C-alpha cells in the first residue's frame, strides 16, 4: 500500500520525476563508467604480458628489465650470451622461450629481433594470442612484421621496404641501408607496446650488423629466403620463457638468478607490472576523486529536485493528512520516493553503461588501447552503489523533514 502511494505520487509528478531519474541515471552511468575504466585500465596494464612465466635479462633492477624488455623504454645494462640463453632454454622445466634483441629502430619505432616463437607463444590480456591483421609471420631473414600502430602511423603495408637505423634516434646517422627489410605481416591491435614495434628475425638483426652497414649482405644471407645454416648470434638482450609447470616458477627463477655462467636476473612479469602500476596510484586516486564528486553532484541534485517538489505538493499533503496519514508516514513517503528514483536510476544507468560498453568496446580498444569488457559488478562498484543508496536517503532527509513539518502544521 505504502509503495503504491509512493509510486502513484511519483507518476502524478511525471515531469520532475523523469528529470530526476535522468539526472541520477547519468550520474550512475558516469560513476560506474569511471570505476570500470579504473578497474580495467589496471587489469589491462597488468596483462600487458600474460602467459609468460619469467622474463630474463642481465642483472639490473626488476623494473628496468621490465621496461626495456616489454615497454621498450630505457636501455639494458648488458646482454645475455647466446650460450647462456641456450643453456636455460634447453632446461627440462622450460617449455618455450622468446628471445628479444633490441638496439635498432626505424623512424623512432623500436625494432625487435626475435623468432617465430614470439607469434606462437606471446599472449596479452586474458591469454589472447597475437593475431595478424594482414599477412603472416616472418619466414625470411629480411622479413618484417609491423605492430598495428607502426603500420597506421607510417602508412606502410605489405611489401613496403623498411630500412633500419642503428640506435634509437629517429634521425640516426648509421642506417643499415644496404639491406632493406620487407613487410610481410601487420599485427592486429593489442593495446600493448607490441603495436609500436617492428619485428624481424634474430638472423636479420645479426645479418645487417655482420659486416658493417655498408657491406652488401646478399652473399651472407639471401633476402627473403629461410636460412637454415645461419650462424648463431653472439648475444641477445633478454628473453621471455614459459614453463612446463607453473609449480617450478620460483625454483627456475632462483636457478637463473644464481646462474653460474654470467650475472642474470629473472623476474615475474605479473609482479613487476603490478609494482609499476603502484607507482601510478595517483592516477587511480584521481579517478576515485572524480567518482566521489560525480556522486555528490547527483545526490545533491536529487535532494534539490525533491525539495522543490514539496512546494507543489501542499494539496497532496492535505489529502493524505485528511485520510489519516501521520507526519512520519509522509516523511517515509518522500524517502521511499527518493529510494525508488535512485534504484530506477541505477538500473537505467547500469543498463545504458553495459549496452554502451558492449556496442563500443572494440572502438574504445582500438582508439585507447583499453579493454572495457561489460563485466558484472565488481565488489568496489557494488559498494559504490550501496553508498549511493545511503547518500540518497541522507540527501532526501531534508525534503522529507520539510514534508514532515508541513504535515505537522496541518492538523
Amino acid at each position, binding site marked *: 500500500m505504502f509503495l503504491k502511494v509512493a509510486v502513484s505520487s511519483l507518476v502524478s509528478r511525471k515531469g520532475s520525476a523523469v528529470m530526476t531519474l535522468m539526472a541520477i541515471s547519468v550520474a550512475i552511468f558516469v560513476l560506474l563508467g569511471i570505476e570500470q575504466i579504473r578497474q580495467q585500465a589496471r587489469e589491462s596494464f597488468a596483462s600487458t604480458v600474460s602467459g609468460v612465466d619469467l622474463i630474463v635479462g642481465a642483472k639490473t633492477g626488476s623494473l628496468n628489465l621490465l621496461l626495456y624488455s616489454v615497454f621498450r623504454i630505457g636501455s639494458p645494462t648488458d646482454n645475455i650470451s647466446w650460450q647462456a640463453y641456450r643453456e636455460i632454454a634447453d632446461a627440462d622445466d622450460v617449455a618455450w622461450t622468446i628471445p628479444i634483441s633490441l638496439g635498432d629502430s626505424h623512424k623512432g619505432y623500436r625494432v625487435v629481433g626475435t623468432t617465430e616463437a614470439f607469434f606462437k607463444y606471446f599472449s596479452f590480456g586474458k591469454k589472447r594470442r597475437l593475431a595478424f591483421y594482414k599477412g603472416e609471420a616472418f619466414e625470411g631473414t629480411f622479413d618484417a612484421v609491423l605492430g598495428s600502430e607502426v603500420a597506421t602511423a607510417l602508412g606502410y603495408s605489405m611489401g613496403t621496404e623498411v630500412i633500419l637505423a642503428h640506435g634509437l634516434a629517429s634521425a640516426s646517422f648509421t642506417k643499415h641501408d644496404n639491406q632493406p627489410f620487407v613487410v610481410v605481416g601487420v599485427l592486429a591491435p593489442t593495446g600493448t607496446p607490441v603495436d609500436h614495434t617492428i619485428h624481424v628475425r634474430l638472423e636479420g638483426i645479426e645479418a645487417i650488423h655482420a659486416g658493417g652497414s655498408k657491406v652488401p649482405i646478399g652473399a651472407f644471407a639471401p633476402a627473403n629466403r629461410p636460412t637454415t645454416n645461419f650462424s648463431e648470434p653472439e648475444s641477445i638482450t633478454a628473453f621471455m620463457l614459459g614453463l612446463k609447470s607453473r609449480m617450478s*616458477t620460483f625454483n627456475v627463477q632462483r636457478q637463473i638468478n644464481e646462474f653460474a655462467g654470467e650475472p642474470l636476473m629473472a623476474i*615475474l612479469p605479473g*609482479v613487476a607490472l603490478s609494482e609499476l602500476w603502484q607507482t601510478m596510484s595517483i592516477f587511480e586516486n584521481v579517478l576515485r576523486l572524480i567518482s566521489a564528486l560525480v556522486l555528490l553532484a547527483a545526490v545533491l541534485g536529487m535532494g534539490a529536485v525533491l525539495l522543490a517538489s514539496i512546494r507543489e505538493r501542499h494539496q497532496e499533503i492535505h489529502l493524505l493528512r485528511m485520510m489519516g496519514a501521520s507526519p512520519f508516514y509522509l516523511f517515509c513517503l518522500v524517502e521511499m520516493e527518493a529510494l525508488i528514483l535512485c534504484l530506477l536510476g541505477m538500473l537505467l544507468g547500469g543498463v545504458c553503461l553495459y549496452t554502451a560498453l558492449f556496442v563500443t568496446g572494440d572502438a574504445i580498444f582500438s582508439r585507447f588501447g583499453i579493454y572495457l569488457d561489460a563485466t558484472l559488478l565488481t565488489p568496489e562498484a557494488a559498494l559504490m552503489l550501496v553508498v549511493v543508496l545511503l547518500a540518497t536517503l541522507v540527501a532526501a532527509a531534508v525534503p522529507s523533514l520539510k514534508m514532515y513539518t508541513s504535515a505537522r502544521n496541518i492538523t
Partner: protein
Amino acid sequence: MKTRLKLLSPLAVLAMVFGCSAVWAAGDVHEHGAADLLLSSEGKDVQITFNAPAQSLVGFETAAVTTQQKTAVERLEAVLSEPSALFVLEGTFCELIDAVVDVSSITGVVDAPSPPREHGDHAEERAAHKGEHAEHADEHAEHASDHIDHDEDHANTSDNHEREHHNHNDGRDAPDVDSHSDVSATYTLKCDSENALTRIALQHGALSFGLERIDVFWVASWGQGADQATPESPIVNLRN
C-alpha cells in the same frame, strides 16, 4: 593508442625514481626482519615455500652450539612443521600432503656430499616422509621425545633434499658459519577445488618471531602477484 606511450614516459621516470631500487626477485634477498612466502598453484596442487633469515627466527645465524640454541632450533622446527599455525588458505579447503623443514644451515650438521638421488627415489623418500608426518600429526601431543626423533628424521630428509638442490645450485645452501643463513620450509597441499584460492592469512605462528613483514609472492592460473603481510595487516588478497 598513442595515449599508452604518452602515459608510459612519465611512468618510466616515476619507476626510476621510486621503484628501481626495490628488488622483487623472490627468495633472493637476505634481509633481517623480513621473510618470503612463495605460493604456486596449479589446478588443485599448491606449493608454499617459506624462507626466512635464521637470525630473525632464532636470533643467531651460526650453527647451534649451546643447549639454549639447540632448544631454539628444535622449537623452530616444531613450529615450522605445523603450517596451520603459520598460515591459513581461504577460498577452498586444502589438505597438507607434505612438509619439508630445512634448518640445516643452523644445525651445524654438514654431511659429506652424497651422489644426487634419482627423482624416483626422492619421491619414495617423500612418500615415506609423508607417512611420518601424518603419524607425527596424530601423536604430536603425547610423544614429545618421539617428536624430536622425528624431527631428526625430518632434518635428514631435508638434508638429502637440500643436497639435491646443492648440486643444482652450486652449493648455495651449504651451511657456512661466516655468512648469512636462511631457514626454509616447503609445504605441498592438495585443495578441494581448482584455482579457488582467494586469500592467505598469516597466523600468529609466522609472525610471532618478530618478523616485521612477510613478502608474499604467488603464481597461479589467474596471474602473478606480490604483496606484503605485516603483523598489523596479516591477510594477503591473492586476487589483487
